[in-house]
């Protein structure tokens, strides 16, 4: 894994640091190392305590035979409906996901909501470290939306929209100072008032 250095947006030293802010939920068979790298980056860059839950079955309810893809919106609704667990849920799947308007997405989330998803399907590479780094970038971007941050136009900010792998790989594993500040404020507020 490259660049695991962190600004740690939420300085967790109190007892709440022990409880999880976010559940990582594998959907179907997912490389466990990818899940660990995502969790580590969420902790080191955003200060979010993430716990990895046991895998759930493939989300067949979201499969669209016409497109031979999975509807990201339906998966998000399903994740948001899960009883119990942490405030935020992040699904990770090795499935090709889409939204009704786009041919595919790397990830999807509810802006200001509580569910997000990362797909590993289109980020394959012979170098596993690159796959993990891409997964971590998508997860951080989607969690950024989850806490209410919109796309950022600053070059080299993780909240910039990546429509292809070239753009995604060109981004460093960090937010720009404005998004970092906004994320830290949003997280403090959200986690203090669950």
């Amino acid at each position, binding site marked *: 894994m490259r660049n695991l250095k962190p600004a740690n947006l939420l300085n967790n030293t109190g007892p709440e640091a022990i409880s999880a802010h976010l559940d990582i939920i594998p959907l179907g068979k997912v490389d466990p190392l990818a899940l660990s790298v995502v969790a580590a980056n969420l902790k080191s860059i955003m200060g979010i305590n993430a716990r990895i839950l046991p895998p759930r079955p493939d989300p067949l309810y979201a499969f669209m035979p016409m497109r031979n893809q999975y509807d990201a*919106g339906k998966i998000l609704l399903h994740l948001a409906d899960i009883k119990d667990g942490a405030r935020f849920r992040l699904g990770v799947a090795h499935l090709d996901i*889409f*939204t*009704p*308007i*786009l*041919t*595919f*997405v790397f990830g999807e989330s509810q*802006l200001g909501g509580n569910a997000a998803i990362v797909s590993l399907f289109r980020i394959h590479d012979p170098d596993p470290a690159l796959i993990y780094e891409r997964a971590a970038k998508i997860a951080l971007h989607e969690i950024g*939306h989850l806490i209410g941050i*919109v*796309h950022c*136009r600053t070059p080299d900010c993780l909240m910039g*929209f990546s*429509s*292809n792998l070239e753009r995604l790989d060109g981004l460093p594993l960090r937010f720009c100072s404005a998004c970092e500040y906004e994320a830290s404020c949003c997280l403090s507020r959200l986690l203090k008032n669950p």
Partner: protein
Amino acid sequence: MKASTNIMVVDDEKTICEALMAWFVKDGYRVETALSGADALDILENRRFDIFLVDIKMPGMDGIELLSRIKAQQPDAAVIMMTAHGSIQTAVEAMKGGAVDYLCKPFDPDALSLLMERVMAHKSLEKENSVLKERLLEEQAGAAEVCIVHSDAMRKVFEVVEEVGPSMAPVLITGETGVGKDLVARALHLKSDRAFGPFVAVNCGALSESILESELFGHEKGAFTGAVKTRRGRLEMADNGTLFLDEIGEISLKVQVSLLRALEEKQFLRLGGSEPVYSDFRLISATHRDLLPLVKEGRFREDFFYRTHVITLHIPALRERPEDIPPLADYFLKRYVEETGKCLEGFTGKAIGLLSSYAWPGNVRELRNVIERAVVISKGRMIGAEELKFLNPGEMPLEQGPRTLEEMEIDHILSTLELCNGNISRAAKNLGIDRSTLTRKLKRHRMSTCDEKP
């Protein structure tokens, strides 16, 4: 810009509306959705949108009809058409109807992102363009206001401006210092087809020969000591616009030759350059001097003289059109009242009498400065004779009997200098003329001041 950009999505499929809304909101736009053309038109009654995404195939009013209705109501809006069943025919129809682009659902993430970047860049350019046009119209209104004319003499001048403004003919504007030759030049530019092009003014009297040459033609890096980088000249900057050369009578014979060649060939060389530079500009020049005697004396080239004064416009001095004084004074009063925030309603009858009978050697510029000064020092609601006493009513021409213009000018300059304790700069400001003009007049009339260095 994004946060202030309003987008409307019109599609009969709710999931499409929701998905597009989610995407645009995450991208920082303000979004509204409508499930039919009729719903969209209802919303359009009260709100304006910058960008529309419209589905072509909808029950009831289809996208093509909605496109024409949107274009009729909000012609500046960018409309992007969407369809799930792409066909070349509908695409052509949509583009002919004024759509900026056509997308097939579902979109490739790259296509949507690039299209939005393109549309936003176009909108930003359009906005910039409309701001510039508004500024130009304001400027046009400003120039028109300053050229306030009640006299027949000035009406004739502006009739000529209306007539020759749209032509490409070079114009020579003559008149005393301070009559507003630059404003007439600007009015000519604004009346021409080049109004949206640059108006580049150069005061040739204020620059030495070498500086003027470099200013007009530009220079290449290393052309002379101090030419550390290549610089465009005013002729080049005036491409597709107007070049206004003020005080053309002060241009040296050498620069006249270069200018003449540039005017005839529409191309010239930068100082130290070898590649010709092309520039298409209209020349308007101005002078307070009579150029014919200069031509006879050989101090002004005859060919350059005839090239620059295809049309001549003479602006009469203010004393030759006293009926323009009260409206101009009112205009300047309003302007300075706005600037200073003072509550002044107008002039007393006596003040108007004083203003109308004064000789105004500094012309409109002097009148402007006098009104500015009167506004600053006034304490009441009206400007009276008290606020204008620095005009030296005792030396007013009407109270002194017939005197020559030159005598009046000398008296006025001397009294202003006395008021300013001999300070030439301050006196020039009060007279509404340049310091160099005042110095020239002092030399011509062989007057001296305590400001002059031994």
